[in-house]
């Protein structure tokens, strides 16, 4: 046993903040006795009546060592108290990490189930310096819009001086709810002071760093080192206790801090994302197996297939060029008329199927259903039916394209209408503009760019579609293409494909030009 009275001559005062009403739960006697036995340090314990007193005693130097509760574990606050330094954090018995949580408890018979329900109820709140009794609850409550500082947030506030009192008030029914430290709660349960069936936890916070033992920064460094090493080693020699009753041991705050940070580590790709990716891969693998797709055959033989087909298509047969061009022109005209029809039909439907402009929900639903219906029926089918009804020619193509693409255009228009900035609409309404005036001035200008963009896109698309529709007899170059195909005139097929390609290419350039000028 070393006697180092040479290094200091006065005994120390230890200031303890009141986290518990039960002296057993805040018992530093064992530790103090051990310190005396090990290094001859005389420590007098003073349980302070509130956190503020304890802090002031340490800040003023009246106490040289102490325990201030969780407030000190908060780095931001700790940095304000330059003169105080943490040196050990207690790990509760049975656990291996020194953190705890703030828990909102209610009687098990209570109607309160979520944190929002806490509003306008009777609550017990602890000292404003209590981390798990006030500070963390303040944060958690503000997340659901309840201001702890505002008295009107609750029906009544019972000010308690420690966690145990709060717990007892909930059980006795004096209050409906209280935020308390999990350390106190668990201790009361294990000491059989309360029956766990009597209470329910409705909300708990994330981990709070354990409350450390502290001492004054400007104590003799040798002494500080001795105190710290003795305390950190104490569990190997005696039963240690502190906040929370019996403790496993005390750990260095740096280690405790490190573990505290580590407790927040989560893997980037959660098991859900990984499961999703694996499921995706499995589904596609099964599809490939089911369709009996043979990649090797595809890779080796496709080259020969292509070579064979191209051989038969060259050189392209451009004879009767005039007829080709007339048909191509007819196709483009069908596309243009079809697109115009789609635009004309889409405007009213879009206005009715935009959530923010539809007069009522029923009309909105009906309009939306119409767009879905026409989008769902492929224009091929529509064209075939119309050919049967009307006969061969351009008309079936125009109608089929018009109605089918109306389904898309109306949807696109409606979406851009729904995304307009509300501000201008409100401004005009507030000045007394009528509904149609608001649409014309606040909505239309905002959607013009997307309107033009969508129309050009649909025109592009319709030209391609119109070439296909010719195949079912709805006019245009598609018909030529199909007959050439049927008669095995592959060079003619090649010529037609080239004409189609060049036409679409040119139209695309024109629409890019228009876009750049207008948008």
């Amino acid at each position, binding site marked *: 046993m070393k006697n180092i009275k040479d290094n200091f001559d006065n005994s120390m005062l230890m200031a303890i903040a009141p986290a518990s009403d039960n002296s057993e739960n805040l018992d530093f006697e064992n530790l103090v006795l051990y310190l005396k036995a090990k290094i001859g340090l005389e420590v007098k314990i003073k349980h302070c009546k509130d956190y503020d007193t304890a802090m002031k005693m340490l800040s003023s130097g009246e106490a040289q060592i102490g325990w201030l509760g969780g407030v000190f574990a*908060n*780095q*931001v606050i700790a*940095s304000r108290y330059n003169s105080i330094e943490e040196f050990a954090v207690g790990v509760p018995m049975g656990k291996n990490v020194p953190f705890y949580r703030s828990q909102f408890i209610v009687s098990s018979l209570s109607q309160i189930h979520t944190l929002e329900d806490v509003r306008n109820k009777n609550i017990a709140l602890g000292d404003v310096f209590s981390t798990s009794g006030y500070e963390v609850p303040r*944060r958690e409550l503000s997340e659901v819009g309840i201001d702890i500082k505002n008295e009107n947030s609750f029906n009544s506030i019972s000010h308690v001086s420690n966690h145990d009192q709060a717990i007892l008030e909930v059980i006795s029914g004096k209050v409906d709810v209280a935020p308390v430290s999990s350390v106190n709660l668990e201790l009361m349960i294990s000491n059989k002071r309360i029956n766990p069936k009597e209470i329910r936890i409705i909300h708990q*916070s*994330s981990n709070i760093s354990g409350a450390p033992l502290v001492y004054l920064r400007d104590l003799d460094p040798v002494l500080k080192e001795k105190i710290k090493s003795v305390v950190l080693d104490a569990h190997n020699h005696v039963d240690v206790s502190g906040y929370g009753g019996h403790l496993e041991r005390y750990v260095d705050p740096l280690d405790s801090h*490190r573990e505290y*940070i*580590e407790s*927040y*580590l*989560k893997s*980037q*790709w959660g098991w859900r994302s990984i499961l999703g990716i694996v499921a995706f891969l499995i589904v596609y693998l099964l599809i490939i197996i089911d369709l009996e797709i043979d990649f090797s055959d595809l890779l080796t033989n496709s080259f020969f297939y292509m070579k064979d087909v191209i051989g038969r298509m060259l050189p392209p047969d451009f004879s009767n060029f005039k007829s080709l061009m007339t048909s191509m022109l007819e196709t483009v005209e069908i596309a243009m008329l079809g697109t115009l029809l789609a635009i004309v039909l889409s405007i009213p439907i879009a206005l009715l199927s935009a959530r923010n402009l539809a007069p009522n929900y029923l009309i909105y639903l009906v309009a939306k259903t119409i767009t879905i219906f026409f989008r769902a029926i492929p224009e091929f089918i529509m064209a075939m039916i119309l050919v049967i009804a009307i006969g061969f020619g351009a008309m079936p193509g125009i109608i089929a394209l018009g109605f089918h693409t109306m389904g898309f255009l109306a949807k696109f228009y409606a979406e851009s209408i729904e995304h307009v900035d509300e501000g201008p609409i409100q401004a005009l309404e507030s000045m007394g503009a009528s509904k149609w005036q608001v649409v014309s001035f606040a909505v239309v200008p905002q959607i013009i760019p997307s309107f033009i963009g969508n129309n050009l896109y649909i025109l592009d698309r319709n030209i391609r579609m119109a070439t296909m529709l010719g195949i079912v007899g709805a006019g245009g170059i598609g018909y030529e293409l199909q007959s050439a195909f049927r008669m095995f005139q592959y060079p003619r097929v090649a010529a037609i494909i080239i004409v189609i390609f060049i036409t679409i290419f040119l139209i695309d350039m024109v629409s890019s030009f228009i876009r750049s000028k207008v948008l």
Partner: protein
Amino acid sequence: MLVEIKELRKTFDNGTKALQGVNLSVNEGEFVVILGASGSGKTTLLRSINGLVNCEQGEIKFCDNIISPSTLPALRKKTGMVFQDFNLINNLSSLNNVLTGLLDSSNTLMSVLYLFTKEQKKQALSCLEMVGLLDKAYSRVDKLSGGQQQRVGIARAIIKNPTLLLADEPVASLDPKISDSIMTLLWNIRRQIGLTVICNLHQVDLALKYSDRIIGLSGGRVILDAKTKDVDEEYIRKIYDGHSAGLFF
């Protein structure tokens, strides 16, 4: 002398003469505030220091090394920046945003797939703790309040333990009470990890409260360079050309 700026001139393509011969130096550990009206050149000056803006004339020295395209990467490794509009990636969590501060030293393949080492993540979590947002580590930043977002921005700026922190109007989009808490945070962090701070502000009261030195910029020139305790209303008035006469004191 951490940063030394000599005769810095910048004229933009549209003819605006943003900087017309700026001379200033910042010592290690100082909290310097650059005060100036809109258009005085504050942002251009700050962004010239870390190379976001290139000046055609003049010289900037960082730790006695002249900044050039070859020395710029080294400077950027030691500098953090906080922006007025936060410049966070909205869809990502606070943690991922703070981790972007470590990208320059991360393995390219891993980081592109958002895979960071445990050590890196712990570093980021510690920074979030320093700004008081540990419990929001996994929340999307666009779900946080303005003040919280700026704190994430600060955590990102300090994760590499920089020598210099540049703050370009960090509180311009925040209300007075939150502005105060953010400036306090910057001040505390500066003390905790030993930083030099150069901060653009247009709020004179914040400048007087938090800075060691105030530099007044007007029309692209330094018209005031004094220790904060020596600054009085006369000086402030000169900076704002009489517009803020009687604003404070």
